[in-house]
């Protein structure tokens, strides 16, 4: 896992031991998406189709699919619902690139068109967004909300 950041983008890379076809489905199939993100997902995987993911019962991520080129690439818009959101639904863009890598996949995720630190600060949003941050971090730390916290993914706490 490696990550880099530029002024208005975040980029994260990961190598996955599954082929691009398998990985791609995790961005378009609601049952698969909630295995790695959120509690419920509403996905209409075609250009202009909705992508809505209830992250933790409080924070809802929302956007639209822009481009789908299975199993190599997909682009969707992204933001958080709610008045306090710094990143409004549809206001930023996520590009996912899946390149075959041996019998696995090299995944690059680039989240761009983020509001700049200055504009967020200027609009007084600088502080508000960590409502999002903290509540999401809390979810990430809660194994009950997400079944994939251990490599075998099964039989954890009960």
């Amino acid at each position: 896992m490696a990550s880099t950041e530029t002024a208005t983008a975040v980029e994260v890379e990961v190598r996955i031991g599954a082929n691009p076809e398998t990985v791609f489905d995790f961005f378009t199939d609601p049952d698969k998406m909630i295995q790695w993100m959120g509690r419920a997902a509403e996905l209409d995987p075609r250009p202009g189709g909705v992508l809505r993911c209830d992250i933790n019962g409080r924070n809802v991520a929302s956007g639209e699919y822009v481009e789908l080129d299975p199993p190599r690439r997909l682009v969707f818009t992204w933001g958080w619902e709610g008045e306090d959101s710094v990143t409004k639904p549809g206001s930023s863009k996520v590009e996912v690139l899946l390149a075959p890598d041996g019998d696995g996949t090299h995944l690059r995720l680039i989240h761009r068109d983020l509001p700049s630190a200055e504009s967020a600060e200027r609009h007084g949003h600088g502080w508000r967004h960590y409502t999002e941050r903290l509540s999401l971090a809390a979810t990430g730390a809660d194994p009950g909300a997400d079944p994939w916290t251990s490599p075998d993914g099964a039989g954890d706490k009960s």
Partner: protein
Amino acid sequence: MDRVARAIAEPRRREILALVRDSELSAGDIAAGFDISRPAISQHLAVLREAGLLSERREGTRRYYRAEPQALGGLRDFLNEFWTDRLERLKLAAELEQQRRNKRGKHRDSNRGRGGGSDRGKP
């Protein structure tokens, strides 16, 4: 969580956090920057401290405050953490799914009587 949301909903408390973002200040220093009563400032400081956004250090009778690091993360830090964590989960889920698919593939192959190691599967 609600405690944090409430704590930062008040503009003065956000200003206080901004003041102690990079440097530790005494309650008196903080109060000097506002035109509200000292008890009101103390109240704000207590709310921020209870929300875990502010740490307090006592030295004699003086109290010093500093913003907690987790209160200061920027949007990019947050998203970087968010996606890194999610993609780690995605990796585990996709790899399990791949194993399942491979197993199913093998079953299909052996039922059809072709593919690697298929002759063992069927009479």
